[in-house]
Structure formats: structure tokens, C-alpha cells
């Protein structure tokens, strides 16, 4: 090899310099391929969706591409907020369409930098019908405020278009095991004796979720706090204006601890902490049943069905849910929802067309047909009885409230989720945990 190399000498120089030019020419010429820019035939979309969600999205896109000839390039990118933040800072290309940021400060910042485009201009004439068709809680700030960064409203303009929703805090059960009626209050729920229905324990729980471990527990406490101390406290708490050690939040933690006590959860607390949320509901369908109830969002039905292919579980006949029972009747009607949004980062004709299409009932009906999620539009038809009822809950909610952790600064969210794991493991550490959370809260919102 060495000899060959050495003999090449002068010829190599010529060849080498030649190829250098060639590389430069090729890379600058052939590199672009489907990027940003004001394309009329291509749209780049980043989404966090994968698997069945991604398939459903492609199903939604198919008629659009057929009709308009616009090609949509979809990339699953779970790091999109960071990537877009970098792109904005560096002034480089952004995707045409991607979810908006969750951090309120970031929403305002991106709007002020012109990175986010207002739906009022993007949707044009169809903006009004988008607002009137979509769940009001997702398009209208409470009390008509001009700023609500949680749903992308800044200065009275909308920057996030809602396309999908999930309802959280539903109590799932196996219809063959739990034959009673839905409890009226949270206390009634806790008072149910599982042995009466031949189940080992009252609840199933699974808080493990890799890097996001603890979020299933946070959903549970969110649903308690918003119904126990109300939406005002809940929202202020998300914004860092209510301390964790405040009586309301502490009460929430204590109520949560009653729910997930060693006696109440299947297999004891170590099982709840070690079990992935996706298979947490498995004991519902074992015989004898491991537990009576699992609290989880609408999307969990897909997990039930995939884990027991042989049982061929049918929504509404084999399993069902009841809505989260009332904690303090004063705050009935507060519902915890999760929604996916699209925000537009490049104002191109093709991207506008796609945004307009996604805001229509025609497009969103395809999600509803594929199952596993609710659309953001009120009037969709669901063949799945479970989703039909979930849609009713979302539609009749007085306040559709966001998931707390998702809208806290990341280090706050992480500390919040992990505090729930810690108190589940060691209920005695509650006060220490809350004091620590106060500290994180003071530090993480500060320089925002």
C-alpha cells in the first residue's frame, strides 16, 4: 500500500486537486433536495408522531397530496423545539410546519422574532370556521385574555393550530370484572373494595417511562389538583406562581399518596414504580384480575389491544371507562386534555394549503376513522364508542386544562415528575420533597 501511495506522487496531485473541485461542485449542486424555501410543491413537516400515529397522519395527507400534488416530507423529530431554537438563533432553515414550543417564554420569543406565523393570515378566510369548529378551550383564552401561550395565543393572535386531542384522567376497567356503577366522588372511588369484585387490588399503576418516568403519576396528581383546588390554582401553579409547599398542592400530593398507597396499587409500590405505563393495565385482563381500575388517557386502548391479541378486546364491550370522579363539586367540569398543534415557520403557498387542509373536518375525520385519538374539531364522528364518549367529555368540559408538567420549564418538570416517584417510594419524604421543589421552582422560572 505504501509503495503504491508513494508512486502516485505527481499524478496524485493533479488528480487530487481535480477531485477537490469536483467534490465542491457536486456538493453545492446536488445537495439541496427537498429543503425549505418558498416551494409550491413540497412541504417539510416535523412531528413527534410515530407508529400508528404516523400512519394515521399519512392517511390524512394522502387525499391532500392527491388533490393538490403537493408532496409532504414528514420527519419524526422529538427534539424539534431545540432544533428550531437553534435554527432561529443561527438564522438557518426551519421546517415549514412543526409543533409550537410549550415554554410560554419561548412562544413569546419566537412570535416576537417572527418565526411563528399567525393563523389569522395563514388560514385566511377559513380562520373563523376553524375557531368555531374546534373545541373552544383550545382556541379561546379564558376570560378573553389576549395572551395564552399554552394554546399559542399572543397579542390576540393564534400561532398554534390544534389538530388532535386526548382526554386524560379517565378511569379504565374490565367490564367483566367491575360490574358496579361509576363512583360519584373520589372518596367513593377509594372506598370501593376490590375483593368484592374478586380483584387483588383497587388500582393498577405504572409510572416507568424511561427518560420521562413519572409522567403517568403526574397525570394523576394533575387530575386531583384541578378538581380539588380549581383551575385558577392549577394554572398559577403551572406558571410557578403557587409554591409546591402551598396547602393546595400539598393536599394534592397527600390525596395522590392515598391513591397509590402500598395497599391500593397492584403488587405494591415497587411494582408501580418499576412497571412501564404501557403495560400497567395488563393485570386488568388477567384472571383473577390483578386490579379493578387504571387511570390513563384515551390513547391507552391501543396498548390494551396489542398486549392481549388473543382476547380480541373490544372497546365498550370488554373494557370501558368512567370520567374522573369529582373531588370538590365546586370544580366539576375541569378536564385534563392533551393536544397536538401545528405551527407554521415558513410562509409558503404549499405550507398554507396544508395548514388550511388540516383545519378542516374532512382531514381530521380521518384521524377519527383510524382510531386512537380525538380530533380537535367538535363535530367528528367516532365509530369507537369509547372515543365518542371521550369526545363528549372534551366538548362539555367547562375548562379543558393542559397537562401541568408539559408546560413547566424542563428542569421543573423533571423535578416534579421525579418527586412523585420519590414520594410513592417513600411517603415519609413528602415535606422534604416539597421543600426541594420550591427551591427548583424559585430557580427555574427566575431568569425567564
Amino acid at each position, binding site marked *: 500500500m505504501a509503495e503504491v501511495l508513494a508512486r502516485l506522487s505527481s499524478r496524485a496531485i493533479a488528480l487530487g486537486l481535480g477531485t477537490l473541485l469536483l467534490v465542491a461542485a457536486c456538493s453545492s449542486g446536488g445537495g439541496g*433536495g427537498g429543503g425549505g424555501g418558498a416551494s409550491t410543491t413540497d412541504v417539510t413537516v416535523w412531528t413527534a408522531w410515530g407508529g400508528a400515529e404516523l400512519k394515521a397522519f399519512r392517511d390524512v395527507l394522502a387525499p391532500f397530496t392527491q388533490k393538490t400534488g403537493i408532496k409532504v*416530507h414528514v420527519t419524526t423529530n422529538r*427534539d424539534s423545539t431545540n432544533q428550531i431554537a437553534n435554527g432561529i438563533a443561527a438564522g438557518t432553515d426551519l421546517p415549514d410546519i412543526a409543533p409550537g414550543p410549550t415554554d410560554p417564554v419561548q412562544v413569546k420569543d419566537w412570535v416576537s422574532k417572527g418565526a411563528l406565523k399567525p393563523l389569522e393570515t395563514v388560514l385566511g378566510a377559513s380562520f373563523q370556521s376553524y375557531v368555531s369548529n374546534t373545541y373552544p378551550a383550545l382556541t379561546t383564552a379564558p376570560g378573553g385574555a389576549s395572551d395564552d401561550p399554552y394554546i399559542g395565543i399572543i397579542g390576540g393572535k393564534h400561532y398554534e393550530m390544534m389538530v388532535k386531542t386526548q382526554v386524560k384522567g379517565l378511569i379504565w376497567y374490565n367490564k367483566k370484572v367491575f360490574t358496579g356503577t361509576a363512583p360519584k366522588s373520589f372518596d367513593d372511588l377509594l372506598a370501593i373494595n376490590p375483593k368484592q369484585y374478586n380483584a387483588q387490588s383497587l388500582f393498577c399503576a405504572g409510572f416507568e417511562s424511561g427518560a420521562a418516568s413519572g409522567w403517568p403519576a403526574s397525570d394523576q396528581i394533575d387530575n386531583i389538583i384541578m378538581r380539588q383546588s380549581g383551575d385558577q390554582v392549577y394554572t398559577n401553579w403551572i406558571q410557578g406562581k403557587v409554591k409546591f409547599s402551598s396547602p393546595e398542592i400539598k393536599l394534592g400530593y397527600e390525596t395522590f399518596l392515598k391513591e397509590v398507597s402500598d395497599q391500593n396499587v397492584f403488587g405494591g409500590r415497587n411494582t408501580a414504580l418499576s412497571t412501564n405505563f404501557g403495560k400497567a393495565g395488563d393485570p386488568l385482563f388477567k384472571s383473577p384480575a390483578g386490579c379493578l381500575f387504571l387511570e390513563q388517557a384515551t390513547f391507552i386502548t391501543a396498548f390494551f389491544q396489542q398486549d392481549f391479541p388473543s382476547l380480541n378486546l373490544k372497546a365498550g364491550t370488554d373494557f370501558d371507562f368512567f370520567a374522573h370522579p369529582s373531588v370538590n363539586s365546586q370544580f366539576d367540569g375541569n378536564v385534563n386534555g392533551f393536544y397536538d398543534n401545528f405551527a407554521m415557520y415558513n410562509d409558503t403557498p404549499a405550507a398554507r394549503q396544508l395548514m388550511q387542509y388540516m383545519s378542516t373536518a374532512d382531514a381530521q375525520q380521518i384521524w377519527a376513522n383510524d382510531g386512537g385519538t380525538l380530533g380537535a374539531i367538535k363535530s367528528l364522528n367516532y365509530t369507537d364508542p369509547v372515543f365518542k364518549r371521550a369526545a363528549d367529555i372534551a366538548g362539555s368540559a367547562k375548562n379543558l386544562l393542559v397537562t401541568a408538567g408539559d408546560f413547566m420549564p424542563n428542569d421543573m418538570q423533571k423535578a416534579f415528575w421525579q418527586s412523585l416517584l420519590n414520594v410513592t417510594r417513600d411517603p415519609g419524604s413528602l415535606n422534604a420533597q416539597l421543600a426541594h421543589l420550591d427551591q427548583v421552582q424559585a430557580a427555574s422560572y427566575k431568569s425567564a
Partner: protein
Amino acid sequence: MSAEVTTRRESAVSRGVTWVDNLGYRLQRLPLHIVIIIICAVWIIPTVGMVINSFRSIGDMNSAGWWTTLFPPHGFTLASYQQVLAIEEVPTSILYSILITIPATVIQLTIATMGAYAFAWMRFPGRNLFFIVIVGLMVVPIQMTLIPVLQIFKFLHVNGTILSVWLAHSGYGLPFEVFLLRNYLGGLPREIFESAEVDGAGHSVRFLRIAVPMTVPAIASLTIFVFLGIWNDLLVALAFLGVSAFRPFTVVITGLVTSQGGGWQYLTAAAVLQMALPLAVFIFLQRYFVRGITSGSVKG
């Protein structure tokens, strides 16, 4: 493979030992084999578990350990693999991964070898300072560098091109490679270089005909890790190719899992597919890991 071992054994035999001595020799070596086999077993069990699980359904994985599949009823299924291969983009994404990985590997190893040679065999002011800075920067996470590098790429008009990831990977990989290769090149005996210099060989000849050939085992082992680092990368690909049409395999397989974490079981099959090529590269490069290459090239 290991020429050294065979010659050692042959010499033991040729010393005129009887079969009893031979047996004694084997027995004496028994603990060695046992230790090696135990370590290897511990090391492969987790991976074996995953490979077996890649042929199982999620229901089975959740309700029983992977080893239960070894006994009837096995319940093997190709569902995970079908799921991965059903993604239209998989073949092109593998091609893109290769198109990203191979040039990036070649570029950085070539540059690193040259740089390491300078650090090992030339004295110049600031040499140690440069070295400390370059190598010390290995500790800085890539995330911190993304914005400035994006700005530089924008200035060079290479954003979103495949060239940008080649350059980025080369930049991020170089410190480690220079560090490692400097050690190897620095360890080569001075006499060889001196005698070459006496023979009138310039630095280019010494580098190409002595330094590079003698460092082949090191370069070969480094190649694997460089290759792997790029092959498994997700961050750099998303940061520099996110809005382009190039989607390497790592990006495409994230689409297997739902945003709620459903479908993680398919990642077992994806992981098996993903590790196949680097493993093949490793097995191929093993031929360069044998004793004798360095001494051979000195004589030749």
C-alpha cells in the same frame, strides 16, 4: 487468526513432549478457557435476550421472560421485522446512512492521522497548548456547539447538504482520533525514522511509507469506533439534515415508536438491523488486529 498462539503451541509440541505433557499443558490452561468463556457469556446474554425478543410479540414479552421462548411453544414471529421493513423509507435511509458514514469516516481519519503525526514527531511552539485544547474539548457536549456551527455552515452555504454532516462529524470526531493516534505514532521507534531520514526520505515519504503502514492496527481499530459513532448518530443528523430530504436510518426508526412510547418492541428488530453493519465492519477489520503487521511493514 492468531499466528502467535499457534507457533507457541507448535513449539511446545516440537520440543518432543509426550501426550501426557500435552494433556498437562491443556489442563493447566483450563482455567484460562473457563474465565474467558464466563466473561463472554455474561457479555452476550443481554444482547441474546434482545435478539430473541425481536422475534416475539409484545404480549409475550410483557408476560414472560425471553428464555421461555427457547422451550415450546416458541411463539416466534417476524412481526417486528415486518414492521421495520414496512417503512418505505428504510432502504433509502440505510443508503443515506452509508453515504454519510463512509465519507465522514474516511475524511476524519485521514486528517487525524496527519495531525497526529505532526503532534508526535514535530516540535513547534504551542504544541502542548494546542493539544490540550483540542483534546480537552472532547468533554464539551455537541449540543453546545450546534448554533455556532450552523452559523458557519450557513455562511458556507452548505446547510442541509450531505457535505455538512461529513464536515460536522469530522470536526466532532477529530480530537479523540488525534489523541489516540498520537499515542501510537509517538510510540514508534525513533531509529526507523532516523535511518529513513539518513536515506534522504522527506517527511512525506516517512509519513506515507513508515508511519501510516505501522499504524494500521490502530487505524483499523479506530475506524470501527469512528464508523460506529457516525452510524448511530441521531443528533447531528437532525441538526444539520433535519429540513433536508436525507433521513438516515436512525432518524427513520424513531418513527416506529408513537409519541406515547407505543411500539417500542419494534426497536428490537431495528436495533438488530442497525448493529449488523458495524458488526460486519468489525469482523472484517479483525484481520488487521493480528500481531506481525507492524514488524512486517518495517522489514518490507
